[in-house]
């Protein structure tokens, strides 16, 4: 039986206050006009207002898969090594459903054998508190098209704002423990659940996908788009900066680099986010590059979201968060790309 609780909005401050006194808490914090980041908070006042908050610049993947992470410590002279991982026990508060979906994608990738031990240990040190959206954050979001606008697990607690109170879904024992230890919640009634259903009904009409494609049709669109002119057009505009992959919640490519200390004997091997948009990403020793052109690299990025993962993980790796469109300096917008592919296929 699903467990739900109520939290009156007047008690929200007390809840977040109690949370920050027990845990390290990160939450969306406003940093600029339309810029939000997940950052450490010590008081409820620092959290961005839920009405204002659009997806953060960098998704919460940074807590699961840090931008730079030491994987090995060594002594090059003594030929000694120690494999390491770093973690912090953190509560991530205010994670939107698009980002919950992103974390689920990364979980699949890193638990695929051979498993990534660093990731798997770290993910279990993190507590996730999700938060529902009732409307699109901006014109770039396509979460409804990707079917990620409604919660599908992947959190410990999930908050839905129902007006003067939040309805909280408890998904894990860890979540239940938080509710129990911070005694500001009351048990939800059947009325509350009915109200949630009403809100969700309204949400279904608010989240018009804007692109009339079913998932099988979307799969089909990307399964047969290799020679589309769209890629040439994107290639001409793309600056190869890698913003799109850095901000993507499901991009996980990395480089592995050695760094030696000034003693010239001890050092670290670390992995660091890399981007398939960089020119030398797929270059081999003989000098051949398999995606020399920007058009090929853009196409690769799209196919890694809409084609390749379907064969391996049976799901799209686009969460619909819209970050790549917001971050692109050349205005390469994912919704426009999909529309252009549709138009090209229709012969327009």
């Amino acid at each position, binding site marked *: 039986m699903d467990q739900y609780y109520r939290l009156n909005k007047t008690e929200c401050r007390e809840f977040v206050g109690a949370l920050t006194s027990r845990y390290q808490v990160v939450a969306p914090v406003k940093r600029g006009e339309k810029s939000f980041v997940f950052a450490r908070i010590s008081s409820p006042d620092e959290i961005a207002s839920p009405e204002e908050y659009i997806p953060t610049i960098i998704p919460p993947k940074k807590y699961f898969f840090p931008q730079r992470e*030491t*994987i*090995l410590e*060594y*002594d*090059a002279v003594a*030929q000694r*090594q*120690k*494999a*390491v*991982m*770093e*973690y*912090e026990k953190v509560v991530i508060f205010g994670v939107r459903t698009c980002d919950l979906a992103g974390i689920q994608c990364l979980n699949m*990738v*890193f638990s*695929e054998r*051979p*498993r*990534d*031990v*660093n990731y798997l*240990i770290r993910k279990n040190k993190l507590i996730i508190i999700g938060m529902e959206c009732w409307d699109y954050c901006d014109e770039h979001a396509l979460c409804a098209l990707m079917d990620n606008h409604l919660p599908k697990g992947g959190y410990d607690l999930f908050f839905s704002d129902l007006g003067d109170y939040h309805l909280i879904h408890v998904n894990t024992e860890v979540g239940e423990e938080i509710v129990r230890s911070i005694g500001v919640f009351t048990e939800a009634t059947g009325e509350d659940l009915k109200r949630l259903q009403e809100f969700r009904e309204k949400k279904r009409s608010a989240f018009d996908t804007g692109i009339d494609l079913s998932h099988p049709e979307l799969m089909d669109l990307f399964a047969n788009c*290799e020679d589309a002119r769209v890629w040439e057009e994107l290639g001409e505009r793309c600056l190869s900066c890698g913003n799109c992959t850095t901000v993507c919640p499901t991009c*996980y*490519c*990395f*480089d*592995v*680099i*050695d760094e*030696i200390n000034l003693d*010239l*004997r001890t*050092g670290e*091997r670390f*992995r660091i986010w*890399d981007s*398939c948009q960089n020119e030398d*990403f*797929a*270059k*081999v*020793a*003989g000098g*051949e590059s*398999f*995606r020399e052109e920007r058009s*090929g690299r853009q*196409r*690769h990025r799209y*196919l*890694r979201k809409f084609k*390749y993962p379907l*064969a*391996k993980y049976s799901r799209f790796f686009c969460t619909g968060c819209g970050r790549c469109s917001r971050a692109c300096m050349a205005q390469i917008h994912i919704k426009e790309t999909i529309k252009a592919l549709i138009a090209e296929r229709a012969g327009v």
Partner: protein
Amino acid sequence: MKRLQLVDSPYLVKEAKVCEVRQMTEHEKYFKLMLRDEPDLDHEPGQFVMVSIFGVGEAPISICSSPTKKGYFELVVRKVGKVTSAIHRLEVGDTVGIRGPFGRGFPVRILEGNDLLFVAGGLGLVPLRSLVDFVIDNRRDFGRVHILLGCRSPKDILFKDEVESWARRIDVDFSCTVDRADPDWKGNVGLITSLIPGVDLDPTRTFAVVVGPPIMYRFVIKELLKKGIPEKQIIVSLERHMKCGIGKCGHCQIGNYYCCQDGPVFSYDEIKDNLEAL
């Protein structure tokens, strides 16, 4: 931030000792290695290892010895970048880090009982040698064996002594060609594709195993298909940039495949429809 020690990290390296080093050509060096804590690398022909030099980095390198040679394994490394230059500085007695063996090697059990046509271009002979030696060491288990070798010039021929010994064997049909001859060269001159039409083979029972530079595949495969060899009997080994070896870092992706885990060996019918594969 807490730091934990991991005993099961896939990034831990095995220590190997360098027991022999030989300069093979201007840019290629041969290394014979032995693992310190394990009796054998226990690999399949066609697999690769990540060679690690602490303080410099790691590079994926094909294993060029057959698993029939026990207790040691061999690599040939072309000096092209930071890591391979550091590997070239290794001397006998030095220690080097090894991860692997990784990937899917040549399908030796499927090849058994069939005729084989090896096509090696340049450095492609290095991974292919692991299979050629395996076949020679188990020669009775295979049908007819043809080896076609193509090199830029006579001085670029790797494993010269061994290649000459293959040419002398009665149970191997060997041909070699160079792009540019030197005054002493008495053999064929021209591209490796020119050797294929002349090979006498039964396409229904022949597996072609092709390894060479990226540009070579398209032309060689075309010739092989002309000979009537079915697509699934054309086996290739593909070179890609790799950072992790465990199907995560994304560098080696070929369409639906990660070359480091799903390859580097593929049959032509598996990869022909994948973008950027060949």
